[in-house]
């Protein structure tokens, strides 16, 4: 059972990291808890599906346009709604959650319900690793997730915008004194976060189907990963994704699949009790000590 735990634990962990990276990115830079993250994930899936099936566009083009459209929607959410409540944490949560609800229930209301909305996989077939069969799409998820984490590392360490984003994340006021436009960077973070949500959708939704309910599940998982990893820490989010991902698979193997969802919720509770700042939430930890 060890090989399959390793393989499917890794796949599950990378999937969780993909769900959470966008949420972690937005919060890390702008301190905005984007509770519309799950809705953007589902919306990206439906946009790609519509372009593919209703307009008959090529799948790669549909995916690309869906990512661009989702990023644009993310920017608009910040520019027209969140900017007005920025700094008021409760209002930010309420506003972004309300937007997420409006998007998800709007999709449902418009008739996008049922289990027939699917995106095609990028590669058909499966690979036999020892006695374990793994389909190519899941392997692609692992490759895409790893590439995305590497890209984010280089982007935030070696590009002007990336460095500005990190500057904002570390100390917003100091960054502003150095001429970094706080609102522009927060908007860029929102665009990047939405892009990450859309990328996650494009890679993960072909494994299943596009359903409105997924928006709520993705949000819960993203929050769980970010709380365990430490809100605002991208590295923490990746590590937490692996911890929760493997814990879920081990739970499924040794306890039963129906305890799987409990793992994520238990992780949130345990983290908040034992170490509220999470694994890598250094700034929060400092605030707590003070």
């Amino acid at each position, binding site marked *: *059972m060890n090989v399959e735990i390793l393989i499917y634990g890794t796949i599950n962990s990378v999937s969780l990291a993909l769900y959470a990276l966008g949420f972690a990115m937005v919060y890390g830079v702008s301190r905005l808890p984007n509770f519309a993250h799950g809705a953007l994930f589902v919306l990206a899936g439906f946009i790609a599906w519509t372009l593919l099936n209703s307009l008959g566009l090529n799948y790669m083009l549909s995916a690309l346009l869906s990512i661009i459209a989702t990023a644009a929607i993310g920017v608009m959410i910040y520019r027209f709604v969140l900017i007005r409540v920025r700094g008021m944490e409760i209002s930010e949560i309420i506003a972004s959650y309300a937007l997420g609800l409006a998007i998800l229930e709007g999709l449902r209301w418009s008739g996008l319900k049922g289990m027939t909305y699917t995106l095609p996989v990028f590669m058909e077939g499966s690979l036999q690793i020892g006695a374990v069969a793994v389909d190519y799409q899941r392997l692609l998820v692992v490759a895409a997730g790893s590439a995305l984490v590497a890209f984010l590392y280089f982007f935030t360490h070696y590009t002007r915008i990336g460095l500005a984003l990190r500057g904002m994340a570390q100390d917003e006021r100091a960054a502003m004194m150095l001429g970094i436009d706080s609102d522009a960077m927060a908007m860029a973070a929102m665009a990047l976060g939405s892009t990450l949500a859309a990328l996650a959708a494009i890679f993960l939704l072909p494994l299943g189907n596009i359903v409105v309910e997924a928006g709520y599940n993705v949000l819960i998982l993203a929050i769980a990963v970010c709380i365990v990893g430490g809100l605002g820490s991208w590295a923490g989010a990746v590590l937490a994704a692996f911890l929760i991902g493997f814990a879920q698979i081990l739970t499924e193997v040794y306890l039963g*699949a129906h305890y799987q969802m409990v793992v994520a919720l238990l992780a949130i509770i345990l983290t908040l009790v034992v170490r509220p700042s999470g694994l890598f939430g250094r700034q929060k930890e400092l605030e707590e000590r003070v």
Partner: protein
Amino acid sequence: MRITVCLAVILAVFLCLTGAGLAAEPIILGCPLPSAFLYGWDAERAIILAVEEINANGGIKVGGAMRPFKVDLMDSRDLEPGVPVSEALLALEKLILDKKADFILGGPVRSEAALAAMPLLSKYKKVSIVTTGVLTPKYHALVEQHYDKFKYCFRIHGEATWLINEILTCLIEIRQKFGLDRVFIMVQDVAHARASGDILSKVAVEKGFKISGMEIYPTGATDFSMGLIKAQKTDSQVLSIWMDMPESAILLKQWHDMKLAALPFGSTLASAEQPGFWKATNGKGEFCMANVVNAGNAASKATPWTMRFYDAYTKRWGIEPEGLGCSSSYMAVYVLKDAIERADNLEPDKIVTALEQTDIMGVYGRLRFDPKNHQVIPGFDPQQGAVGSIIQWQAGKRMVVFPKSIAMGDIQLPPWMK
């Protein structure tokens, strides 16, 4: 004489203005259904179709007048993950109190919600026919145990005990034909599925099957790989699936990608019941079997009415009957019409008596309720009782393969199992 004419004219004008002289008061059918889910909208469409047909033919003859049916639908949300049962009860109570429903038809659909709704129906003396979902045997057991309290509750579709009987009989056929006898059970973490999985695991062993494992998945689960690997490791030959969540389509995709040598048999498998399943799985769901509970939900010639309903539904909604609640929801309206006309009254106790005396040949066979527990009487022969249907996806179509009396084709194995 002049006064009489004047009075007649005034009365005629008054009746015209109030509309009382033109339209008969409709009989309101309150339908608490989870409209965002298959088992909600398929029932809704079937009920509307039946009501349209009945109204087009003049309505229901009661008290010497012809009255139409009117459908009032309310979203019970009972199939949504995380939504408490109280939501369905609120919808039901609103239908009774605000919409003044004369009868309750359709749901609540989730067993837990339907059981919780029984005291409410009793409190308001509302005759209800559940037509979809609700598989728990406890529903009709409660009617039998507390007849005076719960006599207003009827169920017109198959329930878990009978479904297990059907499934077991079908499994025996599969064993005889292909020699498959190791069953791995995968159930959703909801009352009917858990209970059915437990019962199947017991009775299957009694019939000589080996249960190689049982996995329970939370509603909304999206990854079934580890369970499928367990099935592979235990050399399972049949996957018995009990899931009404849309994500169950993922299970079939994963099964196909792993080329698992076990025949998927959806005892309740919402995704595979739908005509869109083929497209949703890109054909990976081929060879998947699914119990669609009653005949008429897939094409067959169970009775002369079966294909008439099937074609009418397809024409009206532009899609074939979709889920397990289509034919039963459709027939519930006709059964109620029949009972109202025989009772010639809307008084609940008289309708209960009339429903207990129901005996009509419907879309899925002879329809009668057990007078003790108000469960529709099932059978393997449409001439004897409400007959079920088990389909298998073959070359993009839902082929009825069980029971033999109405089968349109034979069960097939996927190429990697031959």
